[in-house]
């Protein structure tokens, strides 16, 4: 933290607007702000000199002057118009967040079982302060990371999924985050997922940037899976080259839970995804995977930290990146097996394709194992497309570019295969293919794709 200029504007902003921030939020969220401010002042933005943020200049990303919608002024947008093209035929319970405000104008017909809440964070924390305060901010500590501190200090709304004990939500819940504004805009979003014992649900979050202005998002996602819960979190990023996103996903798993987190980036500018998974109860199972397709100057920086705190848990991690042009990919994966966490099974794989000489991939696996009866492995490769396979396909009449496309799609297909919703899996396979064909930006019928 040599200079605090990037930080100072946010500290000043909060000093001037604390009242407004709080007025348009709720006590559950407001009680964490003072501590978050203190943490932000102490930590600042992570430095490029810190090992964990070596390749992403955070201060630089936050330095420009972005507008914040602290007064919660309604931004004119019809999200249903915007979100027509990408995951049709997938029957979901659909919700929208515009920038960082939950969109409550035309709420979809609820298809949710009784007792389940899917909707705005502000309303939820107002209506159910006791449940909310038990969880909000409890997985993502603002004392550990300056960006989380900043988000906690400024966030006013977001999205909540709450599923009571023994309830199974069959239909996937879909949240569409829409970036929409005429000026450069910053959004500070939260997602809170509370899965009570033996409940089941699936959440698909899609990010879209509609306008060509610059967007900066901080996003903190907290997922609590209580005993026996089963939860899927899909994060599909199709923003824009002028969108920067700092996302931090925190998963706390109790015994016998099964949580899948799958982050797919098809279009972005700069994305930093942090994943923290804690396996705190025996026989918990975590699948953590993700992929990105990058070109031009796009950057994807993935950091993961899986903690095996108790015996008999399984984690399976798979991240893949395809890099074109001058794209930059970073993967840093840490697995911590604590003392006594015997019979741990932990697999980590990171595979990358660099299609050009200018593309760069930095990969660092880190295994820290303090138990002696475990099965852990990690594997990392970065390479090019298989020339023999390309020639084989050409010799059957398939043009080289088409062969490259087919091989690239194939390369990422196992990440998509982890999707546990058939319709979504099919759709994602098609979207990835469109992405490789360069057709994703040409779909008619919605503003995102023009």
């Amino acid at each position: 933290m040599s200079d605090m200029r990037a930080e100072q504007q946010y500290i000043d902003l909060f000093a001037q607007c604390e009242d407004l921030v709080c007025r348009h939020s709720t006590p559950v969220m407001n009680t964490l702000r003072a501590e978050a401010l203190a943490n932000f002042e102490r930590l600042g933005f992570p430095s490029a000199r810190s090992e964990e943020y070596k390749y992403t200049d955070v201060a630089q990303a936050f330095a420009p002057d972005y507008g914040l919608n602290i007064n919660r002024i309604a931004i004119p947008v019809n999200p249903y118009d915007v979100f027509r093209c990408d995951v049709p035929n997938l029957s979901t319970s659909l919700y929208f967040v515009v920038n960082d405000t939950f969109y409550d104008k035309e709420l979809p017909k609820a298809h949710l079982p009784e007792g389940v809440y899917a909707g705005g964070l502000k309303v939820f924390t107002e209506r159910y302060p006791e449940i909310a305060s038990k969880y909000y901010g409890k997985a993502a500590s603002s004392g550990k990371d300056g960006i989380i501190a900043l988000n906690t200090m400024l966030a006013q709304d977001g999205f909540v999924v709450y599923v009571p004990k023994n309830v199974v939500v069959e239909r996937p819940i879909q949240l569409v985050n829409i970036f929409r504004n005429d000026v450069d805009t910053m959004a500070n979003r939260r997602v809170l997922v509370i899965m009570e014992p033996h409940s089941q649900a699936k959440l698909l979050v899609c990010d879209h940037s509609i306008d060509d202005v610059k967007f900066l998002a901080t996003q903190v996602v907290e997922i609590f899976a209580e005993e026996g819960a089963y939860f899927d979190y899909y994060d599909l990023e199709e923003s824009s080259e002028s969108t920067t996103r700092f996302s931090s996903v925190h998963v706390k798993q109790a015994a016998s839970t099964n949580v899948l987190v799958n982050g797919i980036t098809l279009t972005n500018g700069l994305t930093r995804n942090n994943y923290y998974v804690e396996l705190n109860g025996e026989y918990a199972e975590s699948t953590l995977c993700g992929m990105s397709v990058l070109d031009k100057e796009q950057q994807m920086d993935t950091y993961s930290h899986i903690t095996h705190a108790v015996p008999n848990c399984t984690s399976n991690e798979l991240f893949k990146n395809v890099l074109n042009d001058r794209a930059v990919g970073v993967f840093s994966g840490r697995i911590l097996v604590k003392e006594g966490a015997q019979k741990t099974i932990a697999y980590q794989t990171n595979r990358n394709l660099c299609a050009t000489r200018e593309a760069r991939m930095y990969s660092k696996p880190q295994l820290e194992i303090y138990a002696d009866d475990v099965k852990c492995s990690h594997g990392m490769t970065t390479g090019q497309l298989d020339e023999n396979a390309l020639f084989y396909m050409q010799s059957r009449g398939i043009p080289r570019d088409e062969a490259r496309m087919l091989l690239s799609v194939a390369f990422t297909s196992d990440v998509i295969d982890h999707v546990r919703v058939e319709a979504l899996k099919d759709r994602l396979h098609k979207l990835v293919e469109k992405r490789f064909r360069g057709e994703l930006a040409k779909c008619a019928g919605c503003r995102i794709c023009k």
Partner: protein
Amino acid sequence: MLEVKNLHANVNGKEILKGINLSVKAGEVHAIMGPNGSGKSTLSSVLVGNPAFEVTEGEVIFNGKNLLELSPEDRSREGIFLSFQYPVEIPGVSMVNFMRAALNEHRKYKGLEPVSATDFLKLMREKRAIVELDNKLASRSVNEGFSGGEKKRNEIFQMAMLEPKLAILDETDSGLDIDALRIVAHGVNLLKTPENAAIVITHYQRLLDYIKPDIVHVLYKGRIVKTAGPELALELEDKGYDWIKKEMGDE
């Protein structure tokens, strides 16, 4: 159909083909035999445009076109097919996607519309039967986890799908047990018409018991040193290649 004239080719700077002359007409089956390292596989690689091989001299005319100027994909679409000695595994690309892409590229080249889904699956079913590949084939990745025999049968299946004018079978018999060999040969014979031709590259006479050649060539040290009728294959089976080497003054 195919005219190869004075063809020279290098791999990694080393000259392997030293002036091949070969003429194949429609309706003919040619066998190219020869000891290991004589250049048999190099010849097939050069004909399909493998970029690892550099042509330094000579020309290849295929149905009036200068073959050496065409990309590998255009050679395929013009009707040349190589059954690979070592078919490549392509994880993540299903046989059905692979074959549909290939077939539609061939159709596009001929100015035809892409094949409909039902017609395509019907065609797959039909052609699969020729080489007795089971219906799980469609969902499997190309050659991935296939046995040696399945890989070779899969090559002939692809040949059946694409209906080439000139099929080059590169050591298709290697690694095959007798049953697989019979299936593969049966497939090749079924696909034979008076309009197409085949070049069968093999080390042994065994395959030629099933696929009857019209003309047999012996390739040795990058040159075709002997050309005769089918009886030449039998003679080679009987005497081995040593007498050729002797005749060439090498031993």
